[in-house]
Every structure is written in structure tokens, then in C-alpha cells.
């Protein structure tokens, strides 16, 4: 009996520590995660993505490094896609980033199902694919992006990043295509409240987006 309890306790403890994040891992992640909000160059984001991917490949049962690696790849691609003439086709440059992000996110999703944050990145990937050739792809990837954002909201209505993405879409879409700076502002204001009340699960769970939101909001007069 005593033996069984000990075995069970040991097993439980082992299990518990397995679900827990090793200290070394947390420390390495803590050093990188804040950079998500402060890195604003394609090279910088690619470098950050590589750093996350290294951790991901060493800690293959943790979803967060895969998630962050996907996020940094999609951000790097979006920086290229949104630059210059928005409507021009540049899929040859942006699609490799979307492909990379897709592959990494699939690994994250395999470890963590039905997570609002994962659908945030899915939405960003669909938007990046659309940016690759807006004239020909908006009918395919527009609805896909919208569906992913819907799902992110459904899974966590308080996720502040859904407000960031929704507001950015409203802000960057030309008015004749349904964009509106005013509506964007309202969404951002709501978003700020959500950021303030948002409690991440741990020191390395996603909290990013507030500086970006404030930056875009600052452009609305």
C-alpha cells in the first residue's frame, strides 16, 4: 500500500514536472520573449525566429517556442509584404516566410489545441498570404483570415491581440474597401483595456502587442 502511494506520488511528481517548464527553458525564453515587442526589422525578426526555433527543437514538447518562432516569421514576412506598393504581387518574397510560419505553427498546434493565441498567428499567416498577391488572392485568404480571427475571439473573448489585429485591419484598409480610422480607434481603446487586465499564464506566455497598438493608435488624429 505504502509502496503504491510512493509510486503514485513519484509518478505524479514526474508528471507534474513534465508539464512544468524546466528552469533553464524558462530563463532562455524570458531572455527572448520581450524582444517580440521591440524588434522592428526583417533581419532582427528572422534572427529572433531562429533563436526561438533552436529552443523549440531542443524542447520538442513545449508549444511556446514553436509559437513564437512562427510569430516572428510571419512578422518578418508582413514587414516585407506591407512595404512598398501594397497591391503589387510579391509572393515570391513573402510566401517562404508564410510557409515557414505555417510549418512551425502546425507543430505548436499539435502540442496545444484550441488556443486563441495560435489562431492569432493563423490570421496573420492568412493575411501575409493575401499580401503576396492581393488582387488574385483576396477572395481566398480574406475569408480565411477573417475566420481565424473569429475563432481566436471565440476561444478567448478577452485576448487583447484580437483587438490589435481587428483594429489594424480597420486602420490599414483604405476607406473605399471598408476601412475606417475612427472605428479602428474605438477597437484600439477597447484593446488597451483588455491589455491592462490581461493576465498571462506565465512569464513566457504571450503578452505582446501593446506597443504596436499604441504606435498605430498614435497615428490616428
Amino acid at each position, binding site marked *: 500500500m505504502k509502496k503504491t502511494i510512493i509510486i503514485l506520488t513519484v509518478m505524479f511528481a514526474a508528471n507534474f514536472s513534465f508539464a512544468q517548464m524546466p528552469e533553464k527553458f524558462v530563463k532562455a525564453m524570458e531572455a527572448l520573449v520581450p524582444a517580440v515587442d521591440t524588434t522592428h526589422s526583417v533581419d532582427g525578426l528572422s*534572427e529572433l525566429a531562429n533563436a526561438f526555433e533552436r529552443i523549440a527543437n531542443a524542447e520538442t514538447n513545449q508549444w511556446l517556442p514553436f509559437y513564437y518562432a512562427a510569430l516572428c516569421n510571419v512578422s518578418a514576412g508582413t514587414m516585407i509584404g506591407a512595404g512598398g506598393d501594397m497591391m*503589387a*504581387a*510579391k509572393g515570391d518574397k513573402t510566401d517562404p516566410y508564410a510557409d515557414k510560419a505555417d510549418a512551425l505553427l502546425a507543430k505548436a498546434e499539435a502540442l496545444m489545441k484550441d488556443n486563441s493565441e495560435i489562431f492569432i498567428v493563423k490570421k496573420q499567416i492568412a493575411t501575409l498570404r493575401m499580401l503576396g498577391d492581393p488582387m488574385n488572392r*483576396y*477572395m481566398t485568404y*480574406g475569408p480565411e483570415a477573417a475566420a481565424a480571427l473569429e475563432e481566436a475571439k471565440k476561444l478567448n473573448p478577452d485576448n487583447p491581440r484580437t483587438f490589435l489585429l481587428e483594429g489594424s485591419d480597420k486602420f490599414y484598409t483604405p476607406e*473605399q474597401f471598408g476601412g475606417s480610422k475612427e472605428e479602428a480607434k474605438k477597437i484600439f481603446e477597447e484593446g488597451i483595456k483588455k491589455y491592462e487586465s490581461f493576465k498571462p499564464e506565465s512569464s513566457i506566455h504571450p503578452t505582446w502587442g501593446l506597443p504596436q497598438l499604441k504606435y498605430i493608435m498614435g497615428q490616428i488624429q
Partner: protein
Amino acid sequence: MKTIIQAIFFLSLIGISELLSAQTIVTGKVTDKKNPLRGVSITLKNSYDGATSDSTGKFSFKTFERGEFIFTATSVGYKPFEQKITLEGKGTLTIDIILKEEVTELSAVVISAGTFEASDRKKAAAVLNPIDIVTTASAEGDVTGALKTLPGAQQVGESEGLFVRGGTASETKIFIDGTLVNNFFQSSTPNIASRGRFSPFIFKGTVFSTGGYSALYGQALSSALILETIDLPERPSASLGLSIIGVNGGYQSLSKNKRSSVGTSYAYTNLTPAFAVFKQKQNYSQAPELHSGDANFRIKTSKTGILKYYGYFNSSRLDFTTNSIDSIGYKDRFGLTNFNMYHNLAWKENLGHGWKLNAGLSYTLNKDKIKSGLKDGNKKDVILTGLEFKKFNLDLDGNYMNAKLVLEKRLKGISVLRFGGEYNFSNEKSLFTLYTGQQFAQRLKENIRSLFVESDIYITNNVAAKIGTRLEHSSLLNKSNIAPRISLAYKLGKQAQASLAYGIFYQNPERRYLPSPNELTFMKATHYVAQYQKVTGATTFRTEIFYKKYENLIKTGNVNGRDGIAINNSGFGDAKGFEFFWRDKKTIKNLDYWISYSFLDTKRDFLNFPYATSPNFAAKHTASVVIKKFVQAWKIQFNGAYNYASSRPYYNIVPSGTGYKFADMGKVPAYNNFSFAFNYLPTVGNQNAKNFAVYVLSISNVFNVKQVYGYQYSYNGLRKEQIVPPSRMFVYIGAFFSFGIDRTENAVNDRLF
């Protein structure tokens, strides 16, 4: 004391060196042998340590790890680099890396000689995509109309089909999802080009080969048009279209798990209102009226496998008279009813271990009833002496079955081996009823069995070859042929490549010249194509030169009082020329344009030609300019197209002794056509739009320029008359809507599965 101090000093030294030796500095440079590579991810496998190479290819990082590690360097487009290293916890480890390019579909040279590819596939060489086809002004929403703005195709307006590089329309074969399509176009009407039966919206990819096409396809001397139907839709939707020529509606469902879909649509076309506004040369007692419908289902059979069905039917009729050239004051009557049914089943599957399967099965039933005759001024049927032959009925009944199986095995890298077989069955019955009531029935059965093998061999990213051969047997001819094909492609730079293609192509004599009293054989064409292509993200430049040699073309004669019957294979000919294509989507913002030019020098002796000469469907110079300008503020796309063809020859060929002679010949004026179209897209760019609307206004031949396609002669050869379009200008107005359906409202669909 001294020793103690020494000992402490010694110990502290050890301490310091211990501290220093705790980490190793790993540094180095990544190149592709010639140039430094930036952004390469450097990793110590199973550790967190690593770096990313900078713009000079250099990297450096510190690590506290000790022992044996696998050091890796990875970058998209390069083969991963791995090396075992031992970290001793001290010093600097310098590793210089040379990454080798990986042969990938994205970076490899594309075997492209002779082909134009129009699809959304990433694999470059996409010259036109499906949306381009719909928005090309002169195409009038017809798949082949858009292809006529590409080099290689002629601007023939008096009959349907693609006349490619000196070939007749029947030398171009059309394939849907791999299998041959019979009766791709609506049934022929004298001097009017029929439209294709299929909507351009059902296709996601188009490969238009103007020479040197793959061994997977056969029975086409000049060209293969390979169309691929769309897969599962993104979401369920309903569609509605209204235009001056008719109405259409459709519904496309999608199962909840997005693994299967079912759809159907129906269209009713009636040209009566349009013809009331745009006066036609023909006097219609029944304007073209068409009921057509289609149905589809698509089922994902596995992660990569899909089973697709597309079915189509139409029932159409028309009846008109034109002033008879043979007898002044009288009118020629032409009446046509058509019933057509087409079914296509295609299955694609990944079988694992690098094996892929592509199978297709199609069936066509086509029934034409043609009524010809002569009418007097009061529209009464008459029979005039000497012109009795003008009155006849012709009933055609065709059954066609095509099956194809292709197995593909992935070899080293992205090289592949494909092989398989094809079976084409046709059974055509015709019943010819003379003015006397006398009937002539005929039946022609044909079985063509083919085997083919082909390999795409990628030697490096820069060099690739496609080598194939095709074996065919025709039961009707009771003969076999073997047709080797080879293409080579060489990458000249990041975006430029050169290609060469050579191939032999066989085709059966056209069935309308059969049966022949004599033994016939396959007609034969040999293609030589050289291409240079440079494709950047937004521009495409392509130029080709070609030489095509024709042998064993059909010669026709008079057999038992019937003219135009194949008598032997002594015809021959050749075609040579060069072509340019330039497309630019970036130089001017929101403006997309392409220019194509073709030079063609061709002569042939075929059918009843007395000697080899340039045929009446071949113009020496053909050019097109297509412009698409999208004005974001108005959400309107302005599409313009200009098509030019230099003058074409025309002939009156009449019997002379045992053969034929040119009784008259000349040249028609050059052909010019300006077309404009406006597409208003109120929902474009709106990411959250569930409904899409497109409003279309298109005008062909805007400047009302007179266009002459050729001449026709009276039976006695004394009079000739220009063949011109039915109306000089045509205006098309339409509105198309697609309504996305929310999942919540989609309960009905889920019950279907």
C-alpha cells in the same frame, strides 16, 4: 607562507582559467562557395545555443555546453549542413561552412519550352492566372479567347478553336484533368466562331503548350491545352448572374469538416434581346437559345488525395437565313439543335513511398441535328434546279469515352518518373438525308490505345531534362506509332533560363474526311523549339523560335461523287517563326499589361490544295496588347485589348481534271480589333466581405472597324463575298454575385454527407 601564497595564486589561476574555459566561442563564415549567405540559422542541436549569420555571412556565439554536439546550419533553399563537433569548454572553434543549393520546386529551373502556364501554383512560369483569363477584354469570358492574346495563336474569327503555329484548329487538343475533351466548343455554325462550353471559373490552372508538349498527351499535331478544375471551395456559396444574354444561378456546398463538397448550377442563354439591339448579318428565326447545367462533387480521399467529378449538359437550338450567294433573291437556311453531355471523374492520390496516382475517366455524348435548305423571298422552302444539294438534313450522334492512368514515382531530389496508359474510344454515327429523301447512314468506330513513359530529371537546380516517349495504336488505321519527346532547360541566372524542346507528334486523320477508300496512316509533325525566358516577381519576358515539319498530311479528293474524302497521306508542310511576350505588372502602379508578337512563315499542301502554299488561317504577323488598370478609389478595373493580324490569303479551290486548281486567290485586309471592358468590383480588397460582386461592361471592336475574315464563293465560282463577323460591334453587360453562406446557416449541407 610563500608556498601557501603560491598555492593560493596557483589555485586562483586554475579558478580563473576554469572560469574562462567554461565557455567556447564558436565562430565562422557561411558562403555558397562564391558569396556570403545572410540569415543562415546556426544551431548546436538539442541546445539553445546558436546564431544567425550576418550580411557578410559571419556568425559567432558563446556556449557553456561541453561534449559532443551536432552543429547545423540551415537556410531555405539550401541543403542542411551538419557536422559533429566537440566542445571542450575553452578556446575558439572556427567553422567555415559552404552550403549547397537544394534542388527544390521553387528554385529549380522550369522545363518550359513551348508552354505557357496559367495557374495559381507557386512554381513560377505562371504567365497568366485564372483571373487574367476572365478579365482579358478581347476574351469575352471565353477560355480560348484569352489564349489568343498569347504568342503562337492566330486571330481566326470565322471559326472556333486555337490555330497554333501554322496548324489547323483540329491540331489543338484540349484536356480537362488529364483526359481528352471531345466537343469542347459549341457545335459549329457556318462563318461564326462558337464559344467554349465550359465556364472559365471552373478551372484553376491552364497550361497552353504551343509546341513540344509532354508525352502524357497525344493526338495533337500542334498544341495541347491542359485545363485543371478547381478543388474544394473555401466556403459554401450561392451565385447568381444576370446579363444581356441570359441568367445563371448556382449553389456550392462544403461539408463541415471541409473534406467534401457538392455543387450545381444552371444557365439559360437567349440572344434574342441582344440581337434586337446589335443587328446581325444573319436573319434569325430562332436566335441562339441554350439551356445548360453542371454538377460537381469533390471529396478528399486522404490528406493529399482528391476525387473530383464534373458533369455538364446543354441543349441548344438556333435557326437563321442569310442571303444566298448562289441565287440572288433567295436565302440559305441553317438550323442546328444540339444536345451535349459531358462527365469527368478524376482521382489524385499519394500512394506513399514517393508514388502518386492520377486517374481520369470522361464520357461525352453529343447529338447535332443540322437542317440546311434554300428559301425564297417569302421565307418558303424551295428547291432550285442545279442547287438541289442545298437541301439536306444531317444528324450526328457521337459517343466518346476517354480513360487515363498515370503513375508517378519520385526519384532522387525532385526528379520524377511517370508512366501510364490512355484509352480513347469513339463511336460516331451520321445520317445524311438528301432532298429526295434518300438516306445515307454511316458509322465510324475508333479505339486508340496509348502507353507513355516520361521522366523529369533535375541534375542540379540549373539543369533539367524531360525525356519521354509515347506509343499509340489506332484500331481504325490498324497502325501504331512511337513518338519520342525531349526538353532541356538550363538556368542562366536567378531569373533567366533557356530551354530547348524536340518531339514527334502524331494525329489520326480527322473523322470528317473519313471513311477513306484507301489505307491511311497517322499524320506527323516534328517540333523544334528554343526558348529564352526571364521571370521576375512582376515581369515576364519570353521569346521562342520554332520550326515545325509536317508529314503525311491528309489529301482529299472526290470519291463516288462525294467531295472532301481523304484519299492518301501525301500532304506535307512546314512552319517556322519567332515570338515575343512581355508582361509587366510593376513599372506603373496598378497597371498590368502584356504585349505579344508572333511571326509565322508557313506553307502546306493538304486537303485539296493544288500545291503547297500559305493556308488561309495563317497570318504572317500577329500581335496583341492587353492592358489592365485597376483604379482603387473607384474599385473599377479598366481592361483594354488590341489584337492585330496581318492580311491572310484566301482561295477558291475548284476541281480540275483529276485534281484541283486555284480558280481565284487574294488577300484579306489586316485585322484590327480594339476591345474594352470595365469591371466594377465593389467588394475587392475587403477582407471581411462574405459576398462578392462583379459588374461587367465589355465592348468588342470599339471603333467599329470593318473586319474581314476571308471570302466565300458561289457554287459556280462566279461570285465571291466577304466573310465578316455577325455584327461589327458587340456590347456585353452583366452582373455576377457570389454569396458566402455562414456555417450556422449551413445545416442543410451537413445532412448531405
